[in-house]
C-alpha cells in the first residue's frame, strides 16, 4: 500500500547539497543572470531600522489620509462587494481605463481606451512588453544607466542589451543613430528602445525636446518600437513640461507604460500599457497567461478615488513635498560631497545620480556606508556590463529632510575618507585627479559632467607614473 506522507513540519526539511545541485541542473539558462549573493546580503543590512536608506525608490505614502482610504474601501464594500471580489477582464475595467485616460490627458495625451491594458504595476508592463517582443538574442536598446528593475527583465528573456550613454539632455541620440546603423549593417533589427525620458531612473536627467522628436523620427524610419516608461511624468518640480514621446508619435511606434504607483500608491499595484492594437492583443494574451487579470479590488479603489475628484491636488501636494526634499538633497550634496564627485540636478522624479572618481567602487563603499548606518544603490545595478561601478543612485522621496541631510553627510564623509586614502596611496604626493577639473567647471556643469562617460584610460595613471 502507498504510504501517505505525514503533514509537513512548519519548516521544510533540510535540503542537502546534493539536492541543491540536482535542482541547479534543472534551472533554465535565464536564471544564471542572477546577481551575486554577497551583494544581496549587503542589501539585507539596508533594511535594519537604524539605517537611513536612500536606496529605496519609495514614494511617501504617509501623506495619504487614512480616513479617506477607509471611506473609499467601505463604500466599495457596501456597494460592489461581489464584483470587487470577483475576477475581472484581462485587459482591465473600462471605468478604470477612464481614470488612466484622465491621467494621460493631464500630460497632453489622448489615448483610445481600447489601446490600454491594465497591469499589475508598471513592472509587469515592462515584463509583458518584453515577453511579447523579445526572442533570446534579440537586441534591446536602453539608456546607460537604465532602470535597475528593467535589467533582470531583459536578462530573463535573454535579450542582447545595448546601453546608450546619456548626458544632461538624456540619451545621446547621435550614439543611438550610430548603433542603429551598425546593427543594420549586421542585418540585425533591434526590437525596441526602452527609455524613461522624463526624470530618468536612475539618472535623474530628462530627454530634451529636440532629442524626443529625433527619437520618434528614428523609430519610424527604422520601423522599431520605442517603449516609453513614464512613472514620474507628473512629478515635475521645476522647468518646462515636455511632450511625451507618445504624444509626439501619436502612438504608432511608441508603446507607453504608466503607473499609479507614484501619483497614488505603489501598494495597489496598478500600471498600464498603451500599445498599437496588434501589439496590445499579444500583450493581453501574455497577461492572461501570467495572472488572468489585475486585482479587481484595487481597480475599484482607483475608480472610487477618481470619482471623488481631487486626485490632481494630491499630486500637487506630492510635488511640493518632493521639491523640498530634492532641494534639501542638492544642498546637502553641495555641502558634504567632495569636489571629486558630480551629480545630476533632476527637474522631477525621485532620484539623483552621483558619480565618484573611477577608483571608488560603490559596492565596496556601500559596506563602509552601512558601517555608518546609511545606504544607497550602487550604480552597477543599472548596467548589464561592468560600467557604473563608481556611481550611485540616491532617493529623496522616501525620507524626510533631516534624514536626507544626515544621510548625505555620512555618505560624504565615507567618500571623503576614500578620496584621502587614495591620495595618500600615491608616493608622488597630491595627484592631479581627473575629478579635480570639476572645480573649474561653470556652476551648472554638475549636471552635464555627471553623465559624461569617464574614459578609463584617463583615470588613475598614478601608479604607472610612480613605477616609471
Amino acid at each position, binding site marked *: 500500500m502507498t504510504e501517505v506522507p505525514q503533514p509537513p*513540519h512548519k*519548516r521544510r526539511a*533540510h*535540503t*542537502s*547539497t*546534493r539536492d*541543491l*545541485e540536482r535542482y*541547479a541542473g534543472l*534551472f533554465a539558462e535565464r536564471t*544564471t543572470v542572477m546577481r*551575486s*549573493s*554577497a*551583494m*544581496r*546580503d*549587503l542589501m*539585507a*543590512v539596508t533594511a*535594519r531600522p537604524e539605517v537611513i536608506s536612500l536606496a529605496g525608490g519609495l514614494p511617501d505614502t504617509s501623506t495619504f489620509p487614512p480616513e479617506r482610504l477607509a471611506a473609499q474601501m467601505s463604500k466599495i464594500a457596501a456597494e460592489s462587494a461581489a464584483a470587487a471580489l470577483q475576477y475581472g477582464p484581462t485587459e482591465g475595467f473600462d471605468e478604470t481605463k477612464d481614470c488612466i485616460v484622465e491621467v494621460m490627458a493631464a500630460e497632453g495625451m489622448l489615448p483610445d481606451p481600447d489601446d490600454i491594458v491594465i497591469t499589475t504595476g508598471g513592472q509587469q508592463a515592462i515584463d509583458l512588453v518584453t515577453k511579447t517582443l523579445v526572442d533570446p538574442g534579440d537586441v534591446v536598446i536602453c539608456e546607460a544607466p537604465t532602470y535597475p528593475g528593467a535589467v533582470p527583465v531583459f536578462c530573463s528573456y535573454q535579450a542582447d542589451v545595448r546601453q546608450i550613454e546619456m548626458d544632461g539632455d538624456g540619451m545621446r541620440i547621435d550614439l543611438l543613430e550610430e548603433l542603429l546603423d551598425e546593427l543594420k549593417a549586421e542585418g540585425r533589427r533591434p526590437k525596441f528602445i526602452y527609455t524613461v525620458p522624463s526624470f530618468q531612473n536612475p539618472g535623474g536627467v530628462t530627454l530634451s525636446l529636440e532629442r524626443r522628436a529625433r527619437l520618434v523620427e528614428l523609430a519610424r524610419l527604422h520601423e522599431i518600437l520605442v517603449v516609453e516608461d513614464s512613472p514620474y511624468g507628473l512629478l515635475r518640480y521645476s522647468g518646462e513640461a515636455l511632450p511625451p514621446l507618445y504624444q509626439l508619435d501619436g502612438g504608432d511606434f511608441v508603446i507607453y507604460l504608466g503607473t499609479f504607483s507614484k501619483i497614488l500608491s505603489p501598494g495597489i499595484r496598478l500600471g498600464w500599457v498603451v500599445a498599437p492594437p496588434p501589439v496590445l492583443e499579444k500583450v493581453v494574451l501574455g497577461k492572461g497567461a501570467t495572472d488572468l487579470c489585475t486585482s479587481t479590488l484595487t481597480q475599484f479603489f482607483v475608480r472610487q478615488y477618481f470619482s471623488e475628484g481631487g486626485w490632481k491636488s494630491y499630486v500637487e501636494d506630492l510635488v511640493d513635498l518632493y521639491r523640498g526634499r530634492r532641494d534639501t538633497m542638492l544642498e546637502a550634496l553641495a555641502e558634504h560631497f567632495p569636489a571629486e564627485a558630480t551629480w545630476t540636478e533632476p527637474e522631477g522624479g525621485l532620484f539623483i545620480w552621483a558619480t565618484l572618481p573611477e*577608483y*571608488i*567602487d560603490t559596492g*565596496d*563603499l556601500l*559596506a*563602509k556606508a*552601512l558601517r555608518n548606518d546609511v545606504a544607497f544603490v550602487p550604480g552597477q545595478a543599472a548596467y548589464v556590463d561592468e560600467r557604473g561601478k563608481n556611481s550611485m543612485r540616491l532617493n529623496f522621496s522616501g525620507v524626510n529632510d533631516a534624514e536626507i541631510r544626515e544621510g548625505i553627510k555620512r555618505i560624504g564623509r*565615507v567618500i571623503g*575618507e*576614500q578620496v*584621502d*586614502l*587614495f591620495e*595618500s*596611496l*600615491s*608616493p608622488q604626493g597630491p595627484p592631479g585627479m581627473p575629478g579635480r577639473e570639476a572645480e573649474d567647471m561653470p556652476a551648472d556643469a554638475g549636471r552635464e559632467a555627471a553623465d559624461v562617460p569617464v574614459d578609463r584610460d584617463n583615470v*588613475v*595613471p*598614478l*601608479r*604607472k607614473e*610612480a*613605477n616609471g
Partner: protein
Amino acid sequence: MKVVVLKGGRSLERGVSLRSGARVEDALERLGHEVVPIDVGADLVKRLRAEKPEVAFVAMHGVGGEDGTAQELLEILGIPFTGPAAAACARSIDKVMAKATMRGAGIPTPEFFAFTQTAFRDLGAADALTDLEGTLGFPIVVKPSRGGSSLGVKFAASPAEVPGALVAAFSYDDRVMLERFVQGREVAVSVLGGEALPIVEAIPAEGDPYDFEARYEIGRTHFVCPADLSPTERSAITDAALATCRALGCEGFARVDLILGTDGPWVLEVNAIPGLTDTSLLPQSAEAAGMSFEDLVTRILDLALSPSAA
C-alpha cells in the same frame, strides 16, 4: 533543553547568518529542543537574562558575531555556547593575527604584509608599496583583515591596480593585508571536536578564476566532497588544518580554508563560525562523513556542553 539561537545582528554577513540560524532552529526543533531565536541587537544581554537558556547556539558570521564580541558576553553571563571561545574567535577573525600565529607555529601560510589606514595617512606607507610588490610578485591578493566570505577581497594584477584594491578593502576594515597569490586547488577542512571531516574541494564552474563572488554560489562553483586527493595530499592538508585549529585554540568546530599548491598546502584563513546554510561547506563535509544535519547540530551542542567530549 532550552537553546537560544543567536543570529543576524549588524554584520555585513547578516543575510547568511539569518539563513544559518533558521536551519539550526529547524534542526533543534526536530530534535525536540525548546528553541528561542534571537536576532542580536542592543537588548541581547537583557534577553539572555530573561530567557535563561541552558546553551546558546551561535549562528552569527562576520564582525560582531564571529569575532568574540558575543562570545565574551556569553562567558560573562556563564552561558555555555557553541563554537570556539571568545579569545579564539578574536584571533581567527583577524587574518593578520591568525596568520602571525600560524607563522609562529610553523604552519605554511602565504607571505603577507598588513597595513592600517593610519600607516598610509600619517606615515607614508605608500612609499613602501613598490618594495613589497617586488617581494610578493603579481597578482597580489588584497583583503580586509577582518570579515568573512568574499567581501572586499580583490586581485591586483599590476601596480596600477593596487591603490583601488586597497581603497576597496579599507571599506570593510581599518586594517588590510596584501598577500602573495598561491596558484592551486581550493580546499576546505571542517574540524569538529578536534577531528577533521572529509575535505571539500571548490572547483569554479567557469570564467574568471579571480571572481571571488562566484565561489560559493551553487551553479557557479562545483563542490566535490570528499575531494579527489592522494593519501599524501590528504594527510598533509588535514595535518595543516588540525595544527591551525590547535594553534588558534579553536575548539568545538571551525573551518580551515587552504590552497593546495604544487609545493603542498597553504593555509589561507580560519572561520571560527563557518556557515550552516544549505550551500555551506561544513554541512557538506558532515554529510560526506555520514552525519545528517541533525547529527551535526547534536554533536556541536554536546561539544558546547562538555568540551571534554572532544
